[in-house]
C-alpha cells in the first residue's frame, strides 16, 4: 500500500512534467500546425541556463529562476525565427525535419559547450530529503512539481479564457486567415506561442533538473513521452495533454513495479500505439476531417 502511494506520487510528478511539455507541443501545434521535435531542447536549454546562473554565477533562486525563464523566452523567439519562420509557407514536412535538425544541433552544441558530464543544479531541497508519511516516503520536489503544474494549468486557463491576448491567440489557432482579417497580428501571436511554449519547457526544466541532473540528452526521452501523452490525451486538446501526461506517468511507475522494469521505457509507447490503433483521436479528443 505504501508502495502504491509512493508510486502514485512519483507517477503524478513525472506525469506532470510530461503534461507541461505536452502543453508546449499542443500550443505550437494549434498555432502553426507543426510538431516541434525539438521540444525536448526547450527543456534542456533552460536547464543549462539555470546551471550557469545558479551554479556558476551563484545567483539566488529569486533572481536565477526568473532570469532563466527570460532567457527561455528569448530562446523561443530565436528558435521560432530560425527553425520555423523561413519555412512557414511550406508544408509541415520540411518544418518537422528542420526541428529535428534543430534538436540535433542544440543537443550537440550543448555537448560541445558543457561536455557530457551531468551537472547537478543548486535546488530548494537537498538531494535525498524526504517527508515521511507513515511508512511512505515522499520527495518534496515531487510535491513541488505537482503544485506548480496545477498552478500553470490554472494560469493557462485564465490567460486563454479570460484575457484579450488569450482570445486573440485562440482565434489565431482556429483560423489564421480569419484572425488576420479581424485585425489580429498573427505573426506576433505565433511568436508569442513559441515564447510561451519555451517558457513552459523552462519551467519543466527547472522542476526536473534537480531530480534528473542536467545533461545534453536529458530532454529527448521526456519530450517523446510528452508527445505520446498529448496524442494519448487527444492531439490538440489542452485537457487531453494534461490527462494524457498524468496517465502515462502513473502507468509507467505501476507497470515498472508490477509488470516489468526493463520495459518501463516502452510502456508509454505501447500505450501510444494501442491508443492509435483503437481510438486514434485520443482518449479525450474529437474526430476532425479535412476540409475540401
Amino acid at each position: 500500500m505504501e508502495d502504491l502511494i509512493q508510486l502514485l506520487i512519483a507517477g503524478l510528478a513525472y506525469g506532470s512534467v510530461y503534461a507541461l511539455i505536452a502543453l508546449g507541443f499542443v500550443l505550437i501545434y494549434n498555432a502553426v500546425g507543426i510538431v516541434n521535435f525539438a521540444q525536448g531542447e526547450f527543456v534542456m536549454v533552460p536547464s543549462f541556463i539555470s546551471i550557469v546562473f545558479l551554479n556558476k554565477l551563484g545567483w539566488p533562486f529569486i533572481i536565477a529562476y526568473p532570469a532563466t525563464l527570460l532567457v527561455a523566452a528569448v530562446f523561443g523567439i530565436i528558435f521560432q525565427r530560425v527553425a520555423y519562420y523561413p519555412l512557414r509557407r511550406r508544408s509541415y514536412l520540411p518544418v518537422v525535419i528542420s526541428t529535428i535538425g534543430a534538436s540535433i544541433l542544440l543537443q550537440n552544441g550543448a555537448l560541445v559547450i558543457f561536455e557530457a558530464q551531468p551537472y547537478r543544479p543548486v535546488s530548494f531541497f537537498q538531494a535525498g530529503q524526504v517527508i515521511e508519511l507513515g511508512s511512505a516516503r515522499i520527495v518534496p520536489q515531487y510535491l513541488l512539481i505537482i503544485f506548480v503544474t496545477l498552478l500553470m494549468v490554472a494560469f493557462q486557463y485564465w490567460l486563454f479564457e479570460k484575457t484579450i491576448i488569450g482570445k486573440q491567440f485562440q482565434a489565431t489557432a482556429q483560423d489564421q486567415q480569419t484572425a488576420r482579417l479581424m485585425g489580429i497580428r498573427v505573426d506576433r501571436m505565433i511568436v508569442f506561442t513559441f515564447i510561451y511554449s519555451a517558457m513552459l519547457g523552462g519551467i519543466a526544466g527547472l522542476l526536473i533538473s534537480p531530480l534528473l541532473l542536467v545533461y545534453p540528452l536529458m530532454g529527448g526521452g521526456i519530450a517523446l513521452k510528452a508527445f505520446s501523452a498529448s496524442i494519448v490525451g487527444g492531439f490538440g486538446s489542452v485537457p487531453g495533454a494534461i490527462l494524457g501526461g498524468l496517465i502515462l506517468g502513473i502507468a509507467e511507475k505501476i507497470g515498472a513495479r508490477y509488470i516489468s522494469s526493463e520495459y518501463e521505457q516502452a510502456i508509454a509507447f505501447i500505450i501510444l500505439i494501442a491508443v492509435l490503433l483503437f481510438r486514434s483521436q485520443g482518449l479525450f479528443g474529437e474526430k476532425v476531417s479535412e476540409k475540401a
Partner: protein
Amino acid sequence: MKHPSRSLSLFLLLVCILIAAFVVACAPSSTSAPATVAPAAGGATPTRAAATTPSGTSAPSSGASGSSLGPIAKGSAQLSGPVVIALNIEVTGAGAQTGDLGKKAIDIAVEKVNKAGGINGQQINLIVEDAQSSNQGALAALNKAQDDKAVLMIGPVKSTQILAISERIKELSMLSLIGGTNATLTKQGNQWLFRFRPDDSIAANAMVAFALNDLSAKKIAILHDSDAFGTGGADIIEAALKAKNLSTVSRQKYTTGTQDFTAQLLAIKSAGTDTLCLYGTNVADDAVIMRQAKEQGLKINLIGSPSYGQAIIADLPADVTDGLYVVNDYFPGRTAEYAEYEKAWKDKYNSNPDTLSGWYWDAIHLSAQIIARVGTDKNKIREELLKTQGWKGSVGTFNFTTNGDGRDSVDIMQYKGKAVQFVKTVKGG
C-alpha cells in the same frame, strides 16, 4: 523522363560524376603514406598521421624494464623506420568526449617516448583512426589501421565495438591492445586481443566476494543497466552466487537514460535486501539511483560498478553517498607509476588526469618497451606480451594470462563523508 535512353545516360552521367568526386576526395588518404609531420612540442597534434619530433635529447638508460616508470624504451631490436601505432578511438559522435580523454592520455605517453629518443631511436608514429562511436566505424578504423600498416592497434575501449571487429582482427592478425571489459572478449579464441583492464568477471566476482566475506551479506540484490556492460556484470554476479548455492533476492533492470527508479528501488526494498550490487554505465543514471536510494531510506550496503567513482557522484551531498563502495580498475594515487602519469597529464593539460584513461598510457609504454626488445614482428611482440608478468603500470600490475588478460585484480574503495578511501585490492577469478 520520357526517353529511357536519355534517363539512363543522365543516371550514368551522375554516377560518373559522383564516383569521380568520391575517388578524388578519398585519394589523399588512400595513396599517401602516413607522413611524419612536425608540430611544436606541446602544441595540438593533427589527428591523422601525427607524430612528434625527436627533441634531440639522448635517452638516459635505466634498467626498469618491468615498469612504465622512466622515460625510455631501449633494446637491441633493429628498427627500419618510425613505428606506426594505430589508435582505434571515438573521435566523433556520442563517445567523442571519452575518446578525447583517451587520446590525451595516449598523446602524453607517445610524446614522452618520442622526446626521450623514441624506440631505439625511431619515433612512434601515432595514427588516430575514428571509430565514429559505432560498430561500423570501429571496423572502418581497423581497416584503415591495416591500410596504414600499423604494427599494433590500441583500442577500441567499447566491448560491442570489439565484438564487432574481433573477427576482422583475427583475419588481419592485427595485434590489438583493448580496453573493453566484457568478460567474453578474450575467451573466443582470438589470440590477437590483449586486454589492459580487469574484465567484468573480475570486478563482478570481486563484488560478490567482498559482499559475502567482508560485508557478510545474506540477501543480495542487483540493479543494472540492460546494456551489454550491465547485463554482463549482473550475469556474472548471479553465476558467482549460484556457485555458492546462493541466489539474488531481486534482479532489476533499467534502460540507459531512465530518469526515475522508484519502481525498481521499491521492489528491491520489499525483497528485504541487505546488499545491493549496482551495475551501471551512464553516470547520470547512477547519480539519480543514489539520490533515490537515499530518498527511499534504503539503509543497506551499496556496491557500485566503476562509473560510481566519477565526479558527479562524488559531488552529491555527503549523506547521499556516504558508505557507498565502488569496485574500480584501480585506486589512483598509490603508486609512483601513477604519479608519473598524473604529472605528465598536469604538465601538458593543466587539469586532473582522467583515471579511466590510464591504461592507454600503460599500453604505449609496455608496447614501446617490447618493440625495443624484439622489433616490430607482431608474433614476437605477442609472445613477449604473453610473457609479461609483474609489469607495473600506472593503473596497477600487469600479469598476462594465456587468454591475453593483463589485469587480474580490482580495487575497492568507499565514500566516507566527502572523501574516498581505499579499502582493499581483490583478486578476481
